[in-house]
């Protein structure tokens, strides 16, 4: 999992570098300062979901499979709220601000970076949802705690990437 995270970090780093390099280079069209609002709710949910998934791992380690399942479900729900926020933001940007991936360099780098992150969130949510289902069906057992922890590491990574994206796009870029 460490190696996978390293590979993914390398992948994201390139998109981050592209974003940083292209700041201010758009030839026209909407600029970040004009159209971006900091996604506070989504960020709180996503970062809280790191806490809930850690709690799930701990619960499973102690043998409380049911409780672990509940925490996993909470994680998934928090992640879904985050995604919904992203979807709403994109909808607003496309329909009202007129910003698409082809509008200008900002649009290109923004949708690529945030979209790459969102796709990783989706993959993470699928894995966590499956684990929640396994917990509910009692297929998940305390012996699986280490493997579930590895999945939680992936989720923590996704959250850490979000912190970077938040800083680069919504703080530095604006």
């Amino acid at each position, binding site marked *: 999992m460490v*190696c*996978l995270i*390293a*590979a*993914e970090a*390398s*992948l994201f*780093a*390139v*998109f981050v570098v*592209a974003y940083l*390099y*292209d700041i201010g*280079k*758009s*030839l026209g069209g909407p600029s970040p300062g004009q159209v971006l609002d900091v996604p506070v709710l989504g960020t709180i949910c996503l970062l809280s979901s790191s806490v809930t998934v850690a709690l799930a791992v701990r619960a499973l380690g102690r043998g409380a499979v049911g409780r672990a399942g509940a925490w996993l479900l909470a994680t998934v729900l928090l992640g879904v709220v985050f995604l919904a926020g992203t979807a709403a933001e994109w909808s607003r940007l496309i329909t009202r601000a007129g910003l*698409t*991936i*082809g509008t*200008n*360099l900002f*649009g*290109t*780098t923004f*949708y*690529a970076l945030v979209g*790459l992150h969102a796709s990783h969130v989706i993959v993470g949510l699928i894995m966590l949802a499956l684990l929640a289902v396994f917990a509910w069906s009692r297929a998940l057992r305390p012996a699986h705690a280490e493997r579930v922890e590895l999945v939680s590491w992936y989720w923590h990574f996704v959250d850490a990437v979000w912190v970077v994206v938040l800083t680069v796009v919504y703080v530095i870029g604006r």
Partner: protein
Amino acid sequence: MSALAPTIAAPDGATARTGGLARAHEWVVTVDHKRLGVMYVVAGLAFFLIAGLEAGVMRWQLAGAGNTVVSPQVFNRLFTVHGTTMVFLVGIPIVFGFANYLVPLMIGARDLAFPRLNAFGFWAFLFGGCLLYFSFLAGEGLYGAGSAPDVGWFAYAPLTGRAFSPGNSTDYWNLSILVMGFGTVATSINLITTTLTMRCRGMTLGRMPLYVWMMLVVAGMTVLALPPLSAAQIMLLLDRFLGAHFFDTPAGGSAVMWQHFFWFFGHPEVYILMVPGFAMVSEIIPVFSRKVIFGYPMIVAASLAIGFLAMTVWAHHMFAVGMGAPLNSAFAASTMLIAVPTGIKIFNWVATMYGGRIRLATPMLFACAFLLQFLCAGLTGIILSVVPFNWQLTDSYFVVAHFHFVLVGALIFTVFGAIYYWFPKATGRLLSERLGRWHFWLFAVGFNLTFLPMHWLGMLGMPRRIYTYPADRGWDLWNLVATLGVPLQAAAIVVFLVNVAIALRRGEPAGDDPWDAWTLEWATTSPPPPYNFATAPVVESRRPLWDLKHPDDPDGPHE
């Protein structure tokens, strides 16, 4: 039988499947690292033949000024696919195929850590390769080389944008490599995990064979360097299909950014290809010199240094781009620096041979040629790192000569040496020494005849990637000489294939340890059983078989 120590039952003959289809099915569904390793190498060699044919056609065209063997369009497709094939469909599968086969055996493990992920990696590679070659059948049809990519193997933007590459040829390049990239990263994760967690008892990191160390470095580089290529390719896909502007210069995008991202992958990539060659000769040279490798800790340190430094030199492919004197100087410095650990290795290998009792069997012949040719390749690399000199030589035939000396003169030679060395382990049969010598000499002479003159052509002003050249440039003679090396190399490959075919049918039985070697793969049968070792080995030094053969003088106290 005690329940505490169950024996492993021998295969039950009654359940063994027979028949061609059943055997093929076994290979298709296998997750055994040895079978996957063989499949990788065989597939890689098949692509090697195809890419070699592509090269042969190009050399035929370039043998004289103004030849019209193929149209400019077809020639441009040929050099693009030749380069792409050799790097991604020959080099990568062969080096990872060998690692697949050897690493578990060398560390006394039963298989890789994730056997099914391993199989996924192989099939992702094969699919990507077939996708790339399917491009020849699309578009204009086979005679026009279909819709095969024609933008060069490093596909610079904005030539690859929709505006300058309409149609789907660039997409074939993009998607096939993207898919293969996932497989390669997966295999690297597998190798790292295996090496770090599945070594047999007694095998500390400091007792691993150098081959395993170097493949660990290679896997580490792959994990960090391949994703940037995937990232750049995703960006290119977004540009081409969703109208993004990453590399769209009229919209403010940056063509130079593609180069930075590509070479950030591309330079480690060539070390990913070359270091396995070092790994192979680090096993072959000691055995055929009858001496322990000289300076094991230093070679490990040098390998780690190379792995790290390889990530810092990428823009030496971009000295003519206009990055400015400070950046040019910085990358010149890092590139010259990486020559130090690389050169050290050559000294270690020669020092190993010094004072030995060298047996010039075929694997050792290839290793010796490697030493001289890699020396040449490394030195032309130093030449290229001298930035102003680079301004004349980059993008010319000098660079073509340099990287063919690295990838053929060094890597392919070590691969052939490795095949002769480990083929007996994998098949239980020895390859013919006589045919091996013919193979070696034909290839060595042909290779040097083709690629040595290219150094000179570059210095005479001949650029790369041209489908023809004017007759009054003074390049005709050396181009003709270079082409004359092609039939020799082709003949060498034919001899090699005949050698393999004969050996498979009636080669001399090899036994467990035909070369009197010292690492764990020689401690089991040839070929090894599916479970590799009947009992898990326990080692007490870097050369467990030396300890077994010389119980009065084990390695341990000397290390």
